[in-house]
């Protein structure tokens, strides 16, 4: 599974951090969501990735199956 964040759409709501703090953090510099370690989602974090995508108020997170 791959995850992508559209930085232009992100408005800093922080809901993705609630859902998937192991995958995503809020940059203290830009106050926008950034991936912690790349686009590949480890299998054990797939549910969290889906939850982050579903929970984003701006629909800025896309998750795709390989």
């Amino acid at each position, binding site marked *: 599974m791959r995850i992508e964040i559209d930085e232009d759409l992100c*408005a*800093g*709501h*922080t*809901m993705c*951090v*609630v*859902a998937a*703090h192991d995958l995503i*953090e*809020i940059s*203290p*510099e830009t*106050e926008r969501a950034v991936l912690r370690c790349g686009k590949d989602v480890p299998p054990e974090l797939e549910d969290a990735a889906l*939850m982050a995508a*579903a*929970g*984003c*108020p701006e629909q800025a997170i896309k998750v795709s199956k390989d």
Partner: protein
Amino acid sequence: MTGTEEKTDTTTRRTAEFDHHSPDLKNQVGDLGVGPILGKERASCPFGWTEAHGGYWFATGYKELKRVATDDRTFTSGRRTTVEELDSNGVGIPTLPAQFGFLEMDGQDHQVVRRALMPWLASEAVARWRPVIKDLTNAFLDEVIEKGECDFLEDIASPIPAVLTMMLMGAPLRKWKPWAEAQHQQMATLPDTPERARAEQLVGEHVQDLIEMIAERRATPPENGPRDLLDVLCHQEIDGRLLSDNEILIHCILLIGGGVDTTTSLMGSAVRWLAQHPEKRDELRDDPNLMKTAIEEFLRVFAPVTGLARTAACPVQVGDQQVAEGDRIYLAYAAANFDPEVFDDAETVKLDRWPNKHTTFGLGKHRCIGLHVAREVINTVLTEVLTRMPDFTMDADAIEMYPDLAVNQGWVTLPIKFTPGPRVGSEFKPADAAQTKVSEVAAAEATHVAAEIEHRTDEAL
């Protein structure tokens, strides 16, 4: 109370009866707090005008609130000093008694202070404080656990965020009790009462303590860069200069005011609701995976900051309404969180609700700077209460809400009962309030994280 159209010189305003300070609000509050009451005219009037407090607009619709909150150039938060309106506006209707730190600033002035503090409140830095939050929770639960009863507000929900905020700032801990009481009592009392006079005395002493603390800190610059929020405010050049003593003071008051009683109120509301819905209390206790979404749902339903205001910098259209330059707008976060256009079954508390795009931390550039701290505290305290006091109950007749719910919906008192349990021990001792090793370690680690973030930012610029 139906919305009516009123002809004015410039436009046709949609008006409704609305007063976020109304003493009657408290009497109407049911299971879901003040949100549904503030928003009851939303269907016909999601953005309207009221004549209360000299006249202002109110946004109770999600879309309308978001439109105003995220356009911070048009809708300002700063205070104005003009000949006619000395020190007016800001985020309060009526204007707050003193400038509420950088929350009442705009543009670059606001941004530079926020940027300076942000590394210390970033999720990475806040995560280092987790063991401290656990230790404080153990300490204050230990104080009451053998008794089988306590005031959840005074004994648990108020002291934990208060002591933690002081640790994050680097403030001396010995005054935690009067400081927490000052924060709580100014919300829990009505103007012109003996209780308010006592609260004002506490606040006065609290401000005097802060002035002394700032003077002491200014006299002792750190050798190797800032160690805490107070060092950042006292010794870090922000936008090319050091802040004045008064600027530091108003920012400290904002950090304490924003950090302490709001988290207190939210935890109070959550525990009150769980006590009155024991089946939901048990469900949450038995399924820790629910905690994440449950916290967001408590934040949605019981937004502790009921609403804050803006001022229109120029004539502007909001929906079909024409707002004039200088008009005030009240953003009713607690009400927007019940907008059925955005939240399915909005008046039902769903512990697994997701997505949940509540407005409780605010939207846009003024979003709560301490939201990661708030979520950590709420998570730890609710988890520990459910674990150590699993059968807690509350006498619905003994609980009491704040008398004025305009800025903060919280609780004067929330007595709970539970089966007594054993103490678990803690490093922090409420009686002597000495610094703890665990907080020194957390502070050092958070300092390291903040310095790394600073370094990264400098490189990026």
